[in-house]
C-alpha cells in the first residue's frame, strides 16, 4: 500500500507537491528528521565533551578562590609548620595581610604532607614487586583456564569499596598485623637508618604501616592489570630467541620482558601512586587519623585526604571562614600533587603502549 494511494482500481490521487530534490513531503520530513538527528548527536556530543572540562575548571577556580586568603596568611609555614590550630573563636578577630582570622590561628601541614607521602611510598614499595610477580604468574606461568579467573579475582579486588577495605583493615587486618608481623619486624630489623623507622612499640594496628599495606592492596590490581597487559604486548620471538640461546626463565624475564616494558611499568606505578595519594576512606579508618608526624612505622598519624575528611566539620566552627580557607589550601596541595603524578603516569603509559587507562579510576 502506498502512502498516497486509495483503494484498488481507483485512479491514483493527484501527484503531491515535490520538493526541489524531487521527494514527496513524507520523505522530505524523514530527511529533515534524519539530518536533524545528525545535528542533535553532533551538538549533544560537542556540549557533553566540554562539561568535564568545565567541571574541572570550576573545581580549580573554586579551590583557588577559596584558598587565596589562606595562601596569603599562611605563606611558607604552611609547608614547613606543624599543627592546625583554629585559634580562639570567641576572642577578637585579627587581620593579617587584609585577611580576617581568629587570634592565634596557625596552619602548618607538614605532618599531613609527609604522612601522605609516607603511606603512598609504603603502598607502592609493597605493591610494585607483588604486582610484577602477579603479572608474570598470570601471563607467563599459568595456563589460561587458571589465570583468567584469578585475573578476574584481582579485578574484583579493585572494585571493593575502599570503605569496606578500611573497615576490614581496622577490625581484622590491623590487629592481626600488630600481633604477628609487627613484633617480628620490630625485633628483627637491624638498627640502621631508614630501617630503624620500623623499631619501637608496635601499637594496636592502627597506624602508618597498616594504612600503607591496605593501600597497597588497593593499588595492586591497578598495577597488575596494566603490567599484565604490557607483558602480553611483548612479542614472542625475542623471548623464544632468548630461550633458544639457553637463557633461563629469570634471564628472559629480566633481560627481555621487563626491559621491553620498563617505562610502561614506571607509568603504571605512577598511576598507582596517584591513586594512593588521593585515597581517603581506607586511610581514615586504618591510620588512626591523628594529626602528627609518625615517630615510627606503627604509630597513628594522618594524611591530607584523611584530615580533610575528618576535620572539615570542626573547621566550620571558625566564624571568619579562615579554617575552611586553610582546608581549601590543603585540598589544593593534594590536588596539585596527585594531578601531576597522574598526568606523568598517563603520559608515560600512553607513550609506551597503545593502552588507554587501565582498570579503575586513578584517584
Amino acid at each position, binding site marked *: 500500500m502506498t502512502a498516497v494511494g486509495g483503494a484498488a482500481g481507483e485512479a491514483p490521487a493527484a501527484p503531491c507537491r515535490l520538493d526541489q530534490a524531487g521527494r514527496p513531503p513524507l520523505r522530505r520530513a524523514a530527511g529533515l528528521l534524519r539530518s536533524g538527528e545528525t545535528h542533535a548527536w553532533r551538538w549533544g556530543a560537542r556540549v557533553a565533551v566540554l562539561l568535564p572540562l568545565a567541571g574541572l575548571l570550576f573545581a580549580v577556580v573554586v579551590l583557588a578562590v577559596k584558598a587565596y586568603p589562606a595562601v596569603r596568611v599562611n605563606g611558607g609555614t604552611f609547608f614547613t609548620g606543624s599543627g592546625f590550630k583554629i585559634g580562639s573563636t570567641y576572642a577578637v578577630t585579627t587581620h593579617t595581610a587584609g585577611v580576617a582570622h581568629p587570634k592565634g590561628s596557625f596552619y602548618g601541614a607538614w605532618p599531613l604532607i609527609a604522612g601522605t607521602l609516607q603511606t603512598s611510598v609504603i603502598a607502592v614499595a609493597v605493591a610494585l614487586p607483588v604486582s610484577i610477580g602477579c603479572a608474570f604468574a598470570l601471563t607467563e606461568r599459568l595456563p589460561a583456564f587458571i589465570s583468567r579467573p584469578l585475573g578476574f579475582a584481582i579485578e574484583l*579486588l579493585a572494585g571493593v569499596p575502599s570503605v569496606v577495605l578500611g573497615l576490614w583493615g581496622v577490625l*581484622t587486618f590491623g590487629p592481626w598485623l600488630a600481633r604477628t608481623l609487627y613484633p617480628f619486624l620490630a625485633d628483627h630489623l637491624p638498627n640502621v637508618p631508614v630501617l630503624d623507622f620500623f623499631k619501637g612499640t608496635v601499637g594496636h594496628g592502627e597506624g602508618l604501616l597498616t594504612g600503607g599495606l591496605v593501600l597497597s592492596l588497593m593499588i595492586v590490581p591497578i598495577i597488575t592489570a596494566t603490567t599484565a597487559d604490557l607483558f602480553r604486548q611483548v612479542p614472542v620471538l625475542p623471548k623464544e630467541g632468548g630461550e633458544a640461546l639457553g637463557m633461563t626463565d629469570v634471564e628472559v624475564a629480566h633481560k627481555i620482558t621487563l626491559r621491553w616494558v620498563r617505562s610502561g611499568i614506571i607509568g603504571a606505578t605512577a598511576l598507582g601512586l596517584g591513586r594512593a595519594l588521593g585515597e581517603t576512606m581506607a586511610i581514615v579508618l586504618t591510620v588512626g587519623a591523628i594529626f602528627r608526624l609518625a615517630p615510627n612505622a606503627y604509630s597513628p598519624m594522618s594524611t591530607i585526604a584523611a584530615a580533610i575528611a575528618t576535620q*572539615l566539620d570542626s573547621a566550620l566552627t571558625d566564624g571568619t571562614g579562615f579554617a575552611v580557607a586553610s582546608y581549601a589550601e590543603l585540598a589544593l596541595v*593534594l590536588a596539585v600533587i596527585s*594531578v601531576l603524578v597522574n*598526568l606523568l603516569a598517563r603520559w608515560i603509559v600512553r607513550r609506551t603502549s597503545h593502552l588507554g587507562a587501565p582498570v579503575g579510576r586513578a584517584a
Partner: protein
Amino acid sequence: MPRKRRRVVFTVLFRGGTFAALALVLAPAAWLLASVIAKAVPHWRWNVLWTALTPTGGGLLGPILGTLILMAGVLVVAGTVGVLAGLHLAEMATPRRSGADGGTVLRMASDVLSGFPSIVLGYVGYVALVVGLHWNYSLLPAVLILSLMVVPYIAKSTETALRQVPTAYREGAEALGMATGYSLRKVVLRTASPGIVTGLLIALAIAGGETAPLLFTAEFSRTVWTGAFVHAHGFGYLTYVVYTFWDTPSKSANYLSYDAALILIVMVLVLLVVARLIVARSQRYSEGRTR
C-alpha cells in the same frame, strides 16, 4: 656459588616468587571477603533490607534506597554526558593537522579530572554547591559531584568501545545512504554497546562504593528519601553506615555497619560480574578475540 647453581637457584626463586606474589594478593582478598561475611552473617536478619533506620537500630532501607538512587542519578547524569563525550572523542573530534587524533585538550582535561582526589571534589561540592548555592546536604550536589568523578571513566570506556567498531561498518552504512546520525544510532553505537554498557556498569560500581565525595555533599540522614533534590537535611547511603556505625557503642548499630558492608560488596560484585559476562558474551561472537 658456581654459576650454574646460581642460575638454578634464581630460576627456582623466580618461579616461587611469582606464585608467592599471587598468593600475597589473593589471600588477603579472600580473607577480606570471608571476614565481611563472617561479621555480617551470624547476626543477619532479612528485614534489614526493608526496615527503616531508627536511632537505636532498625534496618537499612533508607541507605540501600539511597545508594540505588545515587547510582540511578549518576547513570542519568554521568551516563549521558560520558557516553556523548566519548562519542565526540572517538567519532567527531577533528583530527589534528599532523594527522594525530583530535580532542587532545579535552582528553587531557578528562585525564586530569580522573586524577583529582575524590575528597577534593567533595570539598568543592561542599563549598560551591552545599554552601555557595545554599543547596544544603542533599541529593543533587551528591549526584553532580559523583558524576563529575566518574564521567572521565565513562568517556574513556565509551571511546575505547567505539574505536573497536570496524571502519567498514561506518562505510557500509554510508554507502547505503544512511544519514550520519542514523548510522551512529543504528550501526556504530549498537555495535559498541557491549563495551559502553560494561563501562557504565563499572562506573556504577565505583559510584556506589564511593564515600569521600559524599561526606560533605550528602552527609547523612536516617530517613528514607522524601523526594527533595535540594534543600534537604542530608541524604543516606550505605558507605556512610559502614564508615561510622562500626565504632558506635550500640551493638545493633555495629551489626548494621557489617550488614551494609556485605550488601555493598554483593552489589559491587554483581555489577562487575555482569559487566564481565557482557564482555565475554560479546567477544564470543566477535571476529578478533582480544584475549
